[in-house]
C-alpha cells in the first residue's frame, strides 16, 4: 500500500469539478491511505511547504498539490523531496494549458485542474494506493503504452538510419557498435522494451506498426 498526500486549497472547486460532487469527496475522504487535509490545516501545510519546513510522512509516495498555492521556494522544496525519496508529484492548476509529463528525476505530471478532477481521479488513486508503479499518465487517460510504442518505433527508425549512414560511410572492416550515439539510443530502446514488457525480436521490430495500430485502436 502506498500513501498519497492531496492538498487542495479550494475545496469548493473540488466539489464543483468532481463529477459526483460531495459523494466523490466522501469517497476520497474514506480512503485510509489518502491524506487530504481540509481548511486551515491544509493551508497550514501549504504554508510550511512554502517556508520549506514541512516534514512529510516518510511513506508518502505521491504528492498532489494545487500549483498556484505554491511559491517558487515551495516548488523547489517539493522537487528536492521527490528527488530524495523518489516520490511522484502531480501539480494541477487552472492556468495550465496542456498536460506535460517528465520522468527525468522522478515522476512529475503537470496538468489543468479540469483534467485532474474527472471521473478517472478516484480509480487512479485507488490503483496508485495498491501499486505505486501505476503510471501517472493513467490519470489523463493518455495511453502511455501507445506513447512508449510510438517512441520505440521512432528510435528504431533512427538507429536504422544511423546504421544505414554508417554502412555508407564506413568500411566493412570497421566495427559499427563503437558508434556512441547508436549505443545511447540502443540503451533507451532497451529500457522502453523493458517498461513495455516486450521481448526484443526481429518479428516484433517488423510488426511494430501493427502493434501500434492495435494499441491506438484501444484508446
Amino acid at each position, binding site marked *: 500500500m502506498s500513501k498519497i498526500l492531496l492538498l487542495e486549497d479550494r475545496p469548493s*472547486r473540488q466539489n464543483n469539478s468532481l463529477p459526483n460532487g460531495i459523494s466523490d469527496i466522501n469517497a476520497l475522504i474514506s480512503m485510509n491511505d489518502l491524506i487530504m487535509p481540509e481548511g486551515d490545516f491544509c493551508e497550514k501545510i501549504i504554508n510550511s511547504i512554502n517556508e520549506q519546513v514541512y516534514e512529510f510522512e516518510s511513506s508518502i509516495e505521491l504528492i498532489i498539490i494545487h500549483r498556484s498555492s505554491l511559491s517558487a521556494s515551495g516548488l523547489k522544496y517539493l522537487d528536492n523531496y521527490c528527488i530524495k525519496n523518489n516520490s511522484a508529484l502531480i501539480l494541477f492548476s487552472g492556468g*495550465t494549458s496542456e498536460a506535460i*509529463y517528465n520522468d527525468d528525476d522522478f515522476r512529475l505530471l503537470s496538468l489543468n485542474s479540469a483534467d485532474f478532477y474527472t471521473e478517472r481521479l478516484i480509480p487512479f488513486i485507488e490503483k496508485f494506493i495498491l501499486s505505486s508503479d501505476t503510471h501517472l499518465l493513467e490519470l489523463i487517460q493518455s495511453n502511455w503504452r501507445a*506513447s512508449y510504442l510510438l517512441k520505440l518505433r521512432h528510435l528504431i527508425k533512427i538507429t536504422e*538510419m544511423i546504421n544505414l549512414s554508417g554502412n555508407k560511410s564506413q568500411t566493412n572492416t570497421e566495427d559499427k557498435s563503437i558508434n556512441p550515439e547508436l549505443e545511447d539510443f540502443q540503451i533507451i530502446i532497451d529500457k522502453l522494451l523493458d517498461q513495455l514488457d516486450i521481448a526484443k525480436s526481429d518479428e516484433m521490430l517488423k510488426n511494430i506498426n501493427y502493434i501500434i495500430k492495435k494499441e491506438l485502436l484501444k484508446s
Partner: protein
Amino acid sequence: MNALLIYNDQLLPNSIKNQFEEDNIGIAVNYKVLKSDLIEPNFNIDKHISNFLLEDEIELKKYDVIFLPYSLSTSNYSEYIGLRMAYHIRLTDEFVNLQTPIVFYGEEEPWELCKVTLNGQILFTQNISTTKKISVESFRKQLNYILEEFNQEKDDKEFLKGFVKRISILPPSSYNSHHSVNNESALLKWSEEIGCDKDIPEVKDNLQTGLYFKYLKALSKIKKTVDENLEDDDIEDDDIEDEDIEDEDIEAEDIEDEDIEAEQAEDNVDLTNEPKILLIDDEAEKGWSKFYERLLADIDLKLTTPKIKYKTDLSQIDVIKKAENAVKNFKKNPSLKDLPHIVLLDLRLHDSDFALALDPKNLTGYRILKRIKKINKGIQVIITTASNKTWNYQALMSGEHRADGYILKNGEDDPKQVLENIKKTIENASQRAGVLIKSFDLIQRLKKTEIDLKLPDSQSFQKSFQLNLNIAFKLLEESSLEDKYRNYCFLQLYQLLENYANLKEIYNFKTNELGNGFKCIIEVNGIKTWKLEHKKLPDYPVYIIKDKKSEKDVATFAKLAFVVAFLKNSDNNCLDSWGYLNNLRNKKVGHKGIEIVTYDDIFKMLYFCIFIFDKTEKSYAPPIDKNQLDELKKMLNSKRI
C-alpha cells in the same frame, strides 16, 4: 540556404544536426522541456514555446522552410509538442513566418496523430508537408523542392483566413464556457487602450503567449478585415449624408446639447463630497482593480476594492456575506453618507457559479445585488460580466431588485467605444446615486413611521401609504431616463398628504385643548383664511375646515395648513413652506405639467412628509435657528384667534 531545423537532442542524432549546419542548409535548434522548467511557478507550455520562438537561440527572420518533428518530448512522446509549436509558428505575429512552409518529420501517419491529438488538424492546412525520411539528404531535397516549386505567397490576411478555417483550438479546459477567456481578453485589450497593461503582467503573459488567445486574435483580425471592407462600401453613402447637413443645423444642435447639460448640472444634487465606488470582483487583483482605478481617474471618481479571498475555502454564502459587509462597512461607517454610491459587481464570484444550467438568480452576483438593494435601493449596482447570455441580462435588468447597469466584458469589440460607454454608464450612475440613496433613506424613514390613526380603515390607509411610497421611489428612479417622472414622483408624494388630509377623523386630536365649539381662523401666506368648526359626528366629534366666506369644504391646501398649524404646533415658516409646495403642485406640476420640479423640490416634499407623518419630528427640516424659532412661535400664536 535558409532553413530552420527544430529538434530534441534525445530524439535526433547529433550527427544529423551537425551535418545540417555544416552543409549550410540552415540553423538547427534544440528544444526540450526540462524538469526545472516544469517546476517554475508559472510554467505553461504555450509560454515556453513562445519564449523559445521569440527569445532564445532562434534568429527572428523569415525562413525558407522549417523542419519540425511531430514530437519534442522524451518522457511522454505522444504529447506532440511539435504540432503545437507549428500552431504557434503560424499564429505568432512577431515570429514573421506565417506562410513559411513547414515540413514535419517523423514516422507517424496522419491518422495516428489525429487519433492521439486534436492538434493533428494542422497537417491538412496550407504549406504543410510531411516526411518519414529523417536525414540531411532528405531535408536538403525537401528544401530544394520548396525553393523551386513553392508558389508566390498569398496576402497574409487571406492565408490566415484559410488557416483558421481549417483548424479549431479549444480553450484551456478550466476556462468555463468562454467566461474566463472573455474576462482576460477584455482586461488586456481595455488595459492596453488606457495604457495600464504593464500592471497586469500575468494576464498579459497568458494572453500574449497562450495558443488559444493567439487563435482568438487571428479570428478577430479576420473579422476586422471583413468589417473594414464593409465600411469602405458604406463610406460613399456616409459622405453624401454628411454633405446634406447644413452648418446651421449643427450649431443649433450644439446649443441644445449645452442647454440640456446645463439643466442636468443644476439638477444633480451632490450630497456628499465625491461619489464612491466599490469593486466586487474575484479577479480584482488580477488587474480589474487597477484598470478601473485608471479609467475612473479620467472622470474624477475613486474606487476601492474589499479584500475578499474568493478563491479559497469560502462557501457561496460566505462570499455573499463578505460582499454585503463590504457595502455596509464602506469606510468603516454604516451611516448614510458612507454608503458606496456605485458597486461594480461581477456576476460569477464563486466556483459554484460555473455549474452548468445554473439559474441566473442563484448566481453569487445576483444574490449580492439583492442584498445591496435591501440596504439601500439607491446604491447603483452595475453588473460586470463576461457572460453574454441574454437570460442573465433579462434576469438582472428586471424585477424588484434589478441592476442599474451592465458592463459586458468582451475583448472583441472596439475598445475605444466600449470604454467610452463604460465611463458614460458609471458617470450616469454616479449622478443618479446621490439623489436616490438619500431619497431611499427618507422614504424608508417615512415607511417606518407609525401613523396614529384610530380609524376603522387605518390598515388600508397604511397599506396604500406604503404602496404610494414604493411607487414614488420607482418614479424617481425612472426620472433618470425621463425628467417628467420627477413630476409624477412629486404628485405621488402630494397624494399621500392629500389622502391624509381627507381623513376627517384626524381633526379630533385635541378636542380637550381646543374645547367644544371652538372656532378659529387660520391664515397661510397671508392670502387666505379659513374657519374651523366643531361638529359632532355620530361616533365622535371632529373639526371641519370651511372656507370662511363660502362655508364650503376646503381643499387639501387648507386642511394640511390646519394640520401644520395645530396638530404639529408649527410656525409660519413651516406654513410658508407648505404654501410653496402646494403652489408647485398647482402651478407647475399638477395641471399643465410643462415645468419639471427639481430634485431639491422632491427633497423638500419628502422632508415635509416626514414632518407631517412622523410623530417624533418636531420641526420641518432643514432645522432653523432656535431664536428664530421662538420668534416664529410668538408670531404664530399671535395669529391664532
